[in-house]
Every structure is written in structure tokens, then in C-alpha cells.
């Protein structure tokens, strides 16, 4: 079993693990008793992790101070992997990938074609759930990187769930033969890999060039689902054109919008407090005001000597400061009242790509022989 498909209890030597430093900083490591994981706050020797259950927080005292630094050691999942990923290309994020999988009804009977592999983020999510994933990448370097990564993650050798092939599917289709560059190990008499996909995901600049090649590699006796992932609307138009031409039906395009919210607090500042504060300020100034008024009056009354004699009173500092103005108030400070609020990320992913779905049943014939048998059985009862 791979690091992704097995639920592990304890952190062990050789494991692929994810170190959670912060929400935006998750790093994959391979557990090695001789290694140390370094962060800017301090170093975490792997020996401190080994033998602890996954999910354990590891604490150290920070360098040169008496504070603590923490990390969490997690077992990888496709979703966590997506956030820790070295981006080789644009990646398919969870709101899109999860919708696609649910809509194409991915499960242990699904055989998926994915082209291209890209950064392999979606491949991991597919591999978790489906019977088999045939992933195609036309770029040589990206293919090699993905192959190494999938092997390391156990998707190819241990789980045997993924077949990775280097191929320009737009030009050369999807069929996999012994002389192809592929992760599949061909048997002696095996002439062509049986693909029989019932779900296809095309993340290609020109999916319309790949669609005509699908006929030979998709399952013939069931409904097959297709999803094309394209950023521009004009690509969608050409994709729909190709789908229609190739006999795909139930064509529908959608866009997915995912958002993430932070939970925050906003200070409750009552009107009464605000008015009381102004009253306080006014009172503080009233001596000065009084003085100026008397000065004014005395000028008007020719009583100048008296006016100039008066001393300028000390101005008191504001006493009533209910909202902590002028000081740095930490959000949630217990000396103030707070209201819980949600705040969307300051920058949202407003668009990833359009998803164009379609379906096809190649052979709509009835399974006459089986039906006859079934009906005969019914007769007997």
C-alpha cells in the first residue's frame, strides 16, 4: 500500500510525511532518523517524530530563546499534497477536482483517463478512489518528474492504480503499446494495454484534437463521462463543437467558484461608549473653554488686566478610552467585547477553468441473450 492509500498509525522510518508549519507552508519529508527538519524557528530531528502517532505536534525550544516552536507531522492526503505541491504547471484545485469526481461518479469501478498529468495533483485524488488511472503527459521533463513522484508515493508499484505514459494525445491518441514510454510493464504476449475508460478528464490547451481519439479506448457497453478543463470561453466553444461532431451528448459547461473564509473578531463598540468618550473629552476641554470664554468676555468688557492674569490650566489626558484608541489592541483581547465575523481571503481564485461535461454510450444495443435468460428464469418462477 502507498503512503496515500494506507491509514497509518505511527510515524515510521522511510515514511513520506507532510510537515505542517503553517497554513501556507506544508513540506513533504521522508522520515530518516539521520535527518533534521529545519525551519527558521528551529530544527526538528526526525528522531523526535519516529514512533509518535501521525498528527502529533512536535515541540522544540526555539534557538537562543525560551519560547517554543511547533510543527505537526501529518500523513499525506491528496488534498494536503495539493497545497504542498511543487507547481510544475497550473494545478487543479480541490473545488474543481472534487466536483468533477462527484459528477463523474468516481469510485472503485471507475477507469479514468487523465491528460495531461501536469503537477500530478488531480492524479493523486483520482488514484485514491478509482479502479485505475491512465495518466498522459506529453512533456518529457514533466513526465519524468511525475513518474519519479508517483513511484516514490507508491501509486505505480505498490498500489498499481496508476499507469503513466508520455504521449502527445492530441497527435497520437491514447492507445498504449509495448514500445511506448510508459510506466506499464508489458507481459510477453501483451500487444496493447486494455484501457476501457469510463471517465475522461482532459486538461489540454486543445482538447478538441484529443476527443476524436477517444473512441478506441473508452468502454463500449456503458455510459462514459467526459470532462474538459479550459480557461478560455473560446476553447469551450471549440470543445463543444468537437463533442457534438464526435457524438457526445448531454453537453453542459459549468464554472466552479470555491472560497475560503477566515474566522475573525470585530470589536463591539457601543454608541453609549462613543458618546461617553466624547463627553469625557468635552469635560477635559471645558476648563480651557471656560478660560477662553472669560478671556473673550473680559476683552469685550475692557477688563484686560484680569484676563491676562489667568493661568492656562493643565489639560488632562483622556480618561475614558473604551475602544483602546491609540494603543495596539490584539484581536480577541478579553478587555473588550467582540463579535465573531467571517472574512473571505483578500485574494480569491475567481476563475480556474471552465468545465465542459459530456457523455456517450457507444453501443446502445440491448444485451438480448442475458435478457432472454432473465425472462426465462422469471417464467419458471
Amino acid at each position, binding site marked *: 500500500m502507498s503512503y496515500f492509500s494506507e491509514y497509518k498509525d505511527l510515524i515510521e522510518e522511510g515514511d513520506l510525511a507532510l510537515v505542517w508549519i503553517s497554513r501556507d507552508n506544508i513540506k513533504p519529508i521522508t522520515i530518516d532518523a539521520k535527518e533534521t527538519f529545519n525551519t527558521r524557528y528551529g530544527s526538528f530531528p526526525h528522531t523526535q517524530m519516529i514512533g509518535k502517532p501521525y498528527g502529533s505536534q512536535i515541540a522544540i525550544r526555539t534557538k537562543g530563546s525560551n519560547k517554543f516552536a511547533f510543527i505537526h507531522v501529518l500523513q499525506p492526503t491528496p488534498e494536503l499534497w495539493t497545497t504542498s505541491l511543487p507547481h510544475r504547471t497550473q494545478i487543479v484545485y480541490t473545488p474543481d477536482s472534487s466536483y468533477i469526481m*462527484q459528477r463523474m*461518479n468516481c469510485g*472503485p469501478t471507475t477507469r479514468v483517463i487523465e491528460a495531461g498529468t501536469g503537477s500530478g495533483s488531480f492524479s493523486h485524488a483520482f488514484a485514491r478512489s478509482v479502479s485505475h488511472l491512465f495518466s498522459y503527459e506529453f512533456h518529457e521533463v514533466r513526465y519524468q518528474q511525475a513518474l519519479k513522484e508517483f513511484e516514490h508515493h507508491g501509486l505505480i508499484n505498490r498500489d498499481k492504480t496508476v499507469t503513466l505514459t508520455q504521449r502527445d494525445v492530441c497527435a497520437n491518441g491514447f492507445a498504449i503499446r509495448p514500445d511506448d514510454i510508459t510506466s506499464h510493464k508489458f507481459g510477453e504476449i501483451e500487444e496493447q494495454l486494455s484501457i476501457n475508460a469510463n471517465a475522461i478528464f482532459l486538461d489540454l490547451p486543445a482538447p478538441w484534437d484529443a476527443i476524436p481519439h477517444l473512441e478506441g479506448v473508452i468502454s463500449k457497453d456503458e455510459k462514459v463521462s467526459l470532462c474538459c478543463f479550459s480557461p478560455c470561453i473560446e476553447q469551450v466553444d471549440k470543445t463543444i463543437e468537437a463533442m457534438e461532431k464526435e457524438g457526445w451528448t448531454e453537453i453542459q459547461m459549468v464554472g466552479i467558484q470555491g472560497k475560503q473564509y477566515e474566522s475573525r473578531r470585530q470589536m463591539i463598540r457601543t454608541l453609549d461608549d462613543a458618546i461617553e468618550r466624547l463627553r469625557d473629552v468635552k469635560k477635559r476641554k471645558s476648563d480651557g473653554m471656560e478660560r477662553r470664554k472669560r478671556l473673550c468676555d473680559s476683552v469685550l468688557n475692557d477688563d484686560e488686566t484680569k484676563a491676562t492674569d489667568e493661568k492656562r490650566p493643565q489639560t488632562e489626558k483622556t480618561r475614558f478610552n473604551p475602544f483602546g484608541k491609540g494603543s495596539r489592541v490584539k484581536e480577541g483581547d478579553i478587555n473588550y467585547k467582540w463579535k465573531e465575523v467571517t472574512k473571505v481571503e483578500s485574494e480569491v481564485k475567481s476563475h480556474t477553468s471552465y468545465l465542459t461535461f459530456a457523455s456517450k*454510450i457507444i453501443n446502445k444495443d440491448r444485451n438480448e441473450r442475458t435478457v432472454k435468460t432473465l425472462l426465462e428464469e422469471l417464467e419458471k418462477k
Partner: protein
Amino acid sequence: MNPNKRLGFNQHVILRLPSNNFKIVELKPDGSISLGKFGAFYTNDIVGYPLGTTFEIYYDGSYEPDEKNKNRTPIGKVRVMNTGIDQSDLESTPTPLPMELTNKMSSATNKELINIGNEIQGMTMEEIESLKKQSATHAEIISKMIESHGSFHKKTVYSQEKYLNRKKQKFSKFFTAEYLSSSAMLQFLLEKGDVQRVMDLSQESIGMLLNLGNIRSNGQYLCVDETGGLLVYAMLERMFGGQTSSALEDVGSIVVIHENEHPNLDLLKFSNYSDQFIKNHVKAISLLDFFEPPIMEEVKQAFKPLSKEEISSLKSGKKNAYYRRLKWYNTQLQTIELSKHVEYDGLIIASTLHLPTLVRKLGRKVHGSRPIVCYSQFKETLLELTHVLYKDLNYLAPSIYETRCRPFQSIRGKLHPLMTMRGGGGYLMWCHRVIPAPDPPTNLETT
């Protein structure tokens, strides 16, 4: 015949009708299914075709009207319909439409449009009825109607589409027999107006919940499901696929915690899983039993299993009583096991109970590094939850997620998002169960 691929007997399937309504039916042998104004057909006639096939119901005049019950929809014959471009997105959900209807003319202006409700229809009802009697397909009828409709070409594209759609719904007799997935079941319930019953769930929220929850076929999941079983069904599908033989090795399972005496998983009855399969993979425990499980000593005191010899020596009446007690005994043991000794691989909640207490109490039973996903119709309830979890060192980085699918009218030359769509769809809280470290000793300075 693979029941996940082809229509089989005693299977629940979902039928999509020309009105874009749905109907869940069971394909009983020798039975018939009535779709009201869209006709009726014999179950035996569609069995053996691939799931997803669209059938047209036609009447060749050979049927005898039911003299006893004249309101009964006459049962017609079926033939496979070749669907072309579909009209799926005419402000509604997918339905295939025959190719003949898809070549719409476009008109540049809407000068002629003022009140599309009163358009003149060139054909009389008599003509339409006569056409029907000649066994014309609905497509032919509609084509004829368009020909005879004086101002059709002067309508805007929009009103043409509305017109076609209305006519299509009125005269077409076809249906698509689809696999009853959790998504299809959800859509069925939403169309029916059961939004509250499924807590305002959406397909995209279910999908994201399954992925964030890292649902796999080999996990043991703790689940609270107030959607009548829809959530559990979606998890089962993801774990095991569709209609599965119960021969599957005993791997993954879902432990459903419920707040009433019995769990409400009614929707599973449409799921095509066998009772045995569900029994093997779905275990239900009430909140009370989960948090205050039976005491082992008391259970063992109350009942002692007998040896095989002892049982076979019991009289028949006694034997039955013994087996009832044995069943109780085993349930008690299972409850103790599931509430005490299991560290779960995930906690999946869709509940209207007060979440801060519910999640933290159930969260204790979750293994480190495993995800907790909590669905709620309202963001405000998740907001309160995340603030509570954030302060608890057992939970890592709780966040609130929203996902919305925006469907488009997907007709070339007329692409745009649907003008209206369902609001709602709910929100998800996602975090991971973690294990706080004790304060490290001062002398353990690493260099």
C-alpha cells in the same frame, strides 16, 4: 450483466422526463411504469439496455384502451432514441432533445416580441390530435407546429428557446433511465422541493466533503447524517462503487451516530445495496449509547453465550429467545467496541445539533492526522465552531469553505451562465485532528 452498467430487474433507477422532472422507480419484472402525460411502458422492455439510455414511448395503435379505467395512461412500446445536441441548459437540468429540434433559427432583433405568452399558433388542436393519431413522433409534431407558426422566425433566440421548450414538454414522450447516483438522488430531492430534508446540500458540497474527508474504501468513519442517508449513500458510493455484491471483503465502514432511537437512513432503500451489505458496512449507534456505552460487566452478567452443544439442545421456542438475546448481546459488544476502542479515520458531520460541543466530543474519537469535515447550511454556525476549535489544540487550522457550481447555457453561439440558479448549497468546515505535544524539557535544546 453488470448492474452498474445496464438496466436490470429489481433495480432502482432514476428517470429523467421531458419536463426535466425526475422519478425514482424500481424495475419490477413484468411490471409497468406510468409517467403520466409522458406515457407508460413495460419494465421488461427496457431491461438489458445500458444505463443512461433515452427511450421514446410510441403508440402504434395496436393497444387496447383500458375500459375499466379510462384515466389510466395506456402502455406504449419503447424504442431507443438517438439524442443529439442537448438543450440541457435552458434554464434547467439536462434532458436530451432529438437532433431535429436543435437547428434553431436566430433573429437579430426582438422587434416582434412583446408578449410571448399570446403567440398565435398556426395549428389547431384538431390538426395536432390528428397528427398524433398518425403516430407522428413528438419531434415531427413540433416541427410541423414551427412551420405553421407565423411569427416564429421573428422571435428572439430566447423566446424561440422558451417556445420550443414549452412545446417539447407538452408533446414529447421520452425518458432517460439513469443510474441512481447520490448526485441524482440529491437532484431528485431538490426538484421535489425537499431542500430542508437534505440540509440545502449541493452536489459540489458533497463532492468537496468526500475529498476533504479523504474518503476511501478502507477507512472507518464516524458520521452524523441528518440528510436521511444521502450523505451515507454518497460515502458508500465513493468507498464501494454502485450496487456491489456483499461478497466484498470486510474493509471500510461507516459508524452513524444518531440522536433518535433509530437512525434515519431512509434514502438507502433506493440505493441498490443489499441489506446484508449495508449491515456489514453501516453501523448505527445513538448518541447516548456512544457516549454512555453499556458496561461490559453488566452485559456479560445479563447474558452468557452458550456452546454449540448447549444451543442445539434447546427447544425451538427457547432457541428463538436465545438468538434474540444473543443478537442484543452482540449489539452491546459492538457498541462498546465502536464507542471505546476505535480511533476513527475521519469524522463527517451534517447535523443541526450545536456543533461546538458535538464536534469536540466526537473529535476525541478521531485518530491523529485524520480529517474532520462538517457540513452546515449556514456559515454562521460554522463560524462559531471554528472559533471554538481554533482555541483547542486538538484541531489543526479549522477553516470554512464554500463551493458553488455555476451552470451555463451550453449552446454554441449562445453561451452564458443560466439566468437563475438555486441559491444555497451550504458550507464546509475542514480541519485535522492532531495530538498536542507536552511542553518539551528545557534541556532538550537541539543544535
